[in-house]
């Protein structure tokens, strides 16, 4: 870790080589943990409410478009794979290749937003709103909160794409790229819990 990281005390410069290295900045990990906590609390609230309304939740869950959800899962997983390739490319000093992988990941993110928008449009046609039922409240809140995170993740990916094009990242400077990549993986991870929880498990 670099000496300007957020550790309680600066690490000695001659750290033993076997010491595990934190990928990305400690600050982004604190942020990621806070994000996971927020989603975690939301998931717990969902589970708690569902336990009291199992039949309603099962019936309304069955009306969701699982194919769209599955397609979005594939898109996010693919985006995460592309981000991994981008990090690997940067480690090999292949800046242009890194930029291309990041662009591909951003495109997958955009695909996610498009699919989700169609889902929302269909939901609103059926008069589904935050007040129409407890399940709809959670479905809309959770997916929209995640939707906003995908947008933020894409903003970060775009900023990194811009950085990669100008050759900012390399084996000596992976901090920014790894931090952004960690954030994107978090967005993906949350969806991997959200999708089965809200769309599938009954």
């Amino acid at each position, binding site marked *: 870790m670099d000496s*300007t990281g*957020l550790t*309680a*005390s*600066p690490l000695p410069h001659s750290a033993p080589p076997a010491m595990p290295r934190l990928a990305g*900045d400690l*600050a982004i990990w*604190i*942020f990621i943990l*806070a994000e996971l*906590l*927020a989603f975690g*609390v*939301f998931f717990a*609230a969902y589970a708690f409410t569902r336990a009291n309304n199992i039949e309603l939740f099962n019936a309304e869950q069955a009306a969701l478009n699982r194919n769209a959800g599955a397609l979005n899962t594939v898109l996010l997983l693919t985006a995460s794979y592309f981000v991994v390739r981008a990090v690997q490319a940067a480690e090999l000093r292949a800046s242009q290749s890194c930029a291309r992988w990041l662009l591909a990941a951003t495109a997958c993110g955009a695909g996610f937003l498009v699919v989700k928008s169609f889902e929302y449009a269909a939901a609103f046609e059926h008069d589904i709103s*935050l*007040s129409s039922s407890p399940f709809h*409240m*959670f479905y809309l*809140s959770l997916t929209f909160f995640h939707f906003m995170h995908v947008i933020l993740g894409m903003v970060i990916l775009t900023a990194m794409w811009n950085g990669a094009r100008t050759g900012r990242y390399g084996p000596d400077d992976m901090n920014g790229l790894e931090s952004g990549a960690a954030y994107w993986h978090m967005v993906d991870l949350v969806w991997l819990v959200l999708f089965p929880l809200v769309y599938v498990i009954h």
Partner: protein
Amino acid sequence: MQYKSQAVAKPYFIAAIGLFVGQILFGLIMGLQYVVGDFLFPEIPFNIARMVHTNLLIVWLLFGFMGAAYYMIPEEAETELFSPKLALTLFWIFLVAGALTIVGYLALPYATLAKLTGNDILETMGREFLEQPLITKVGIVIVALGFLFNITMTMLKGRKTSISMVLLVGLWGLAIFFLFSFYNPHNLVKDKFYWWWVVHLWVEGVWELILGALLAFVLIKVTGVDREVIEKWLYVIITLALVTGLIGTGHHYYWIGTPEYWQWWGSIFSALEPLPFFAMTVFAFNMVNRRRREHPNKAAVLWALGTGVMAFLGAGVWGFLHTLAPVNYYTHGSQITAAHGHMAFYGAYVMVVLTIISYAMPILRGRAANPEKAQVLEMWSFWLMTIAMVFITLFLTAAGILQVWLQRVSDTPMSFMATQDQISLFFWMREWAGVVFLIGLIVYLVSFFVKGDTRSASAS
């Protein structure tokens, strides 16, 4: 001091401290009125004392924020203030308008004040914390715009740092959200809904940006830790503060007629509001532990560390106590709210303003730090006021728990006034803690007049 124009901060700080004294005196008056109902009646009725107590708090904190900005922005931008003359003019306008408003509260019946000040042109008065007459509200907007113009122009012509950006966004947000005080729809639900856009989005939104910026500035100065490290923390803190604080507004929307989903949104997001305050505490201690220099101003370091801890306890922990909808169903508007309000305002905003005053005032008076004796007194005042506030909070919390139990949870609930009688012991203890707070404040004032050996300002 590095730039001559930073000196305009001095009258702002002095006025802030003066109004702080007034706020505490009125706090003691109304604290006594809780147990001796007709104390000073009819000269100063309870509702007037309360209005003066809360309005003075807000006004002196605004003086503190403006003073802080006038001190910080030239140093951050590495250039003189755009217009020191404008800053001084606005100071006098704000002080006179504020003083006249308080005199109006005390000398006139509120309805007469409303009639005299044109409330019938645009009805904005009569709402908690936004009691100011229309002309005062317009005056606040004019002063705020002039102030923002001045510091924004200063920043535009100089160096743009993350700290000054965060401070500026916070101050602009403060001014913009205040505009909702002019919007007073007849629909009570809407009225309350937007009322919180001033009250909540100030203290749990944009003010947190100001708090973060002030703390970061002082920590850079007293610890000598790299700016990049401190700025990184600042970004994490303000992002957490904004995400939890903005949606956390929902914790005021449980019972005012808004849709039910606010109970979930408000509970979940506001339950996370302690996070930025926790991060702030870790941040402050971390930076002080990694300090690269021993700054001679020990008192300022103490205030900075105290801000983190007390803001976390008062705003974070005491806020969390009653923020979840099922809990708030019982505790809403009880003495638990008062307990939270006291420690949160003291821990977050009073202490951060005292932090910047503690750091900047000696420099404004031509020395890096106050003489040792003065600092010792100032640190005594820190402990007296802080411990007194802890006790005020604990007594009010006890009063609140008993109140909720007797008045709301019980199978045979008591009336409001009968309950107040039952909890009077705690109100007495709170009043005595308030007296200790006043003693602490007097010690604080005395510390400004203690003389002794000082090192020159160039040492900073």
